[in-house]
């Protein structure tokens, strides 16, 4: 059974290799190969899952040692996998949603002549992501970590002929690279602290290390998480990442990759538990991003960017929960899974809408689509209800738990975090309702585009709608399935541990207040966008709105400080290198030349001046001899 783990990774990797090296002759069947391999990986996952369920909680952790990767002195890195409940959860999510999105892409990318390549990249992503969650040491995890980064780079920039796409891809990779820096430093710290970076030993030894070191490690891990999961201050790339094809946004930038940060933190629970200060920072980051993403989401008119904002804020929830320690780990993951479902569904819905509106993304040019594309409307609507936490749907359970946990943190922190979480819930309700209304309700607002053909919205083909339906099911029932009888809790607890904390307020109160804010949010949105018609051209809006449209000026800050500053630095350095460093050398050469030119003048060809030197020489010789005699 253990040996199957490697297959999980191998299958999509093989797919990527075949599709990318296969060449044009595979164009016809490429997408089928890719989908089949993704699905096979899912099947293997399910088999392993069934096997795991068969065992009791203690023996559920499988490991597989492939070979020793980098053995140098005390530095022993192996290629070895570890499959426990946490990993298993991710494996199922990744391969499941992944396979669905493969299917969806078959339809979505139908008219793209580079579809084979697209599926290659998708498979590559799956492989890297699985490697990430299956690795049994941080270095191997790092490989997966950067692998998904690469895949996301390739997929965001899939339409490279669009400069915006290329830039977005580069930006995503660079920002992630900053996070990766954090991860690599964390690994180095682990190596110097524990002499290893394999999960088991590290977590055992974690107790022995000084808190300072642990905090440092934890913070570095957090930096990595921020990069990958688009948390403040490294969130700026996610919005631009929407340049990629919509399935990519659904799979990578909503369901799976961006949640890797949460995985990392939960996986490193033992380290974080031992570093409370770091945990506090985590919660703060989570809370801030939560609001940040929500606010951005309210202002965007680009449907995908709006969803991206919401993704940010939802992951904010997860990070927040993960920061709460044992109280929140489980719920973080749970929300992660449910979010995986409904957010993927939402994105696929958005994709379907764009598909029908020949790639129009501006919601102000939508409106009243529910009649044109009913399935999309329904699935999207279910996803919407799920994400705002409509009672009984997935989001309701998972988010509610997180808010409770936030309060349960206790103390003023608890209140603040809980409050923020509530506020976030309200805003979520607001902007999601806004999206919903602007897209599917009201009268139609689309006009013929510049070359004059009117978009005639139509429902997407089956191959696209079926995945959406499946995901819709997920987003409806997953939460309930997990929560009833604390299934998910019992499933994960052996890995992450769990504690109830001390809730200052009863769960019921929290739920009720959530409901209240939810209603407020929806009502506000309805008042804004449901009652009165939506202007096709966005109004100037308040200062906050304008800021939010510009991602709260994050990019402007980066541009001014990093890009401009960097450009000036490099330019001046180029100048310095040419004039100073090189100048010194050339200057030396020149001065040598000048000197020799001067010495040359001594050779003036006059016999008499030569005679003088001869004579002087003679004098010196005599002097020398005399001195010798004297001494």
């Amino acid at each position, binding site marked *: 059974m253990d040996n199957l783990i490697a297959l999980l990774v191998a299958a999509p990797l093989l797919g990527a290799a075949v599709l990318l090296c296969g060449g044009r002759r595979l164009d016809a069947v490429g997408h089928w190969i890719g989908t089949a391999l993704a699905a096979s990986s899912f099947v293997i996952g399910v088999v392993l899952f069934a096997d795991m369920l068969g065992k009791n909680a203690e023996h559920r952790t499988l490991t597989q040692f492939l070979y020793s990767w980098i053995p140098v002195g005390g530095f022993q890195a192996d290629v070895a996998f570890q499959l426990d409940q946490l990993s298993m959860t991710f494996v199922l999510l990744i391969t499941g949603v992944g396979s669905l999105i493969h299917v969806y892409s078959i339809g979505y990318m139908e008219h793209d002549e580079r579809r084979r390549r697209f599926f290659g990249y998708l498979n590559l992503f799956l492989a890297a992501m699985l490697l990430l969650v299956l690795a049994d040491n941080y270095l191997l995890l790092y490989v997966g970590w950067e692998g998904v980064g690469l895949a996301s780079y390739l997929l965001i920039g899939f339409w490279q002929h669009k400069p915006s796409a290329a830039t977005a891809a580069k930006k995503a990779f660079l920002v992630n690279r900053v996070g990766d820096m954090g991860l690599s430093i964390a690994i180095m710290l682990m190596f110097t602290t524990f002499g290893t970076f394999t999960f088991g030993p590290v977590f055992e030894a974690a107790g022995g290390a000084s808190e300072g070191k642990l905090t440092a490690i934890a913070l570095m891990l957090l930096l990595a998480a921020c990069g990958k999961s688009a948390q403040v201050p490294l969130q700026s790339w996610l919005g631009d990442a929407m340049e990629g094809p919509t399935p990519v946004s659904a799979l990578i930038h909503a369901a799976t990759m961006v949640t890797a940060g949460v995985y990392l933190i939960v996986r490193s629970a033992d380290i974080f538990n031992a570093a409370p200060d770091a945990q506090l920072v985590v919660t703060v980051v989570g809370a801030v991003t939560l609001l940040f993403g929500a606010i951005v989401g309210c202002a965007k008119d680009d449907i995908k960017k709006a969803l991206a904002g919401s993704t940010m804020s939802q992951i904010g929830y997860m990070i927040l929960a993960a920061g709460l320690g044992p109280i929140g780990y489980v719920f973080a993951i749970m929300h992660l899974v449910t979010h995986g479902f409904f957010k993927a569904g939402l994105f696929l819905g958005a994709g379907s809408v764009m598909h029908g509106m020949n790639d129009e993304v501006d919601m102000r040019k939508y409106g009243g689509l529910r009649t044109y594309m009913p399935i999309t409307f329904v699935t999207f609507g279910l996803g919407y209800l799920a994400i705002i936490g409509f009672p009984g749907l997935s989001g309701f359970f998972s988010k509610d738990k997180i808010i409770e946990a936030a309060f349960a943190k206790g103390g003023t922190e608890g209140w603040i975090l809980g409050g923020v979480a509530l506020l976030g819930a309200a805003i979520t309700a607001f902007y999601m309702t806004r999206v919903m209304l602007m897209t599917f309700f009201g009268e139609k607002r689309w006009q013929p585009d510049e070359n004059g053909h009117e978009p005639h919205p139509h429902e997407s083909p089956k191959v696209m709608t079926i995945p959406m339906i499946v995901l819709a099911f997920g987003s409806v029932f997953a939460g309930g399935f997990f929560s009833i009888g604390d299934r998910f809790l019992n499933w994960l607890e052996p890995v992450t541990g769990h504690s109830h904390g001390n809730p200052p307020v009863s769960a019921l109160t929290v739920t009720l207040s959530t409901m209240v804010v939810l209603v407020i949010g929806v009502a506000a949105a309805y008042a804004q966008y449901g009652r009165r018609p939506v202007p096709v051209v966005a109004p100037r809006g308040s200062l906050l709105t304008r800021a939010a449209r510009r991602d709260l000026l994050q990019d402007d800050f980066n541009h001014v400080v990093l890009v401009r500053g960097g450009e000036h630095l490099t330019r001046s350095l180029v100048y310095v290198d040419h004039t100073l460093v090189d100048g010194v050398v050339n200057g030396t050469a020149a001065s040598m030349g000048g000197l020799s030119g001067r010495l*040359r003048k001594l*050779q*003036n*060809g*006059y*016999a*008499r001046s*030569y*005679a*003088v030197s001869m*004579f002087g020489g003679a004098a010196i010789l005599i002097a020398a001899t005399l001195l010798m005699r004297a001494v």
Partner: protein
Amino acid sequence: MNPVNYLYLAALLFTIGATGVLIRRNAIVVFMCVELMLNACNLAFVTFSRMHGNLDGQVIAFFTMVVAAAEVVVGLAIIVSLFRSRHSASVDDASLMKL
């Protein structure tokens, strides 16, 4: 008086001659200065021979004279041909040893 003074005198004359060689431009005068130096040497030799009480010093001086004579002959010949070729006897005119 101590005959060493002769040596001092010789040294003095030699130096004067040498300086002359360096200062004068006229080849003939330069030549004369060389002669002066030779003579100074001769004086020194003679004094030495008196000092050591044997005649070898004088023999050397004698040879010096002979060689000097030969040298003068050739040297003057050179000067004459030089003068013929470039109507001047200045040593600086023959400054072709420049790069």
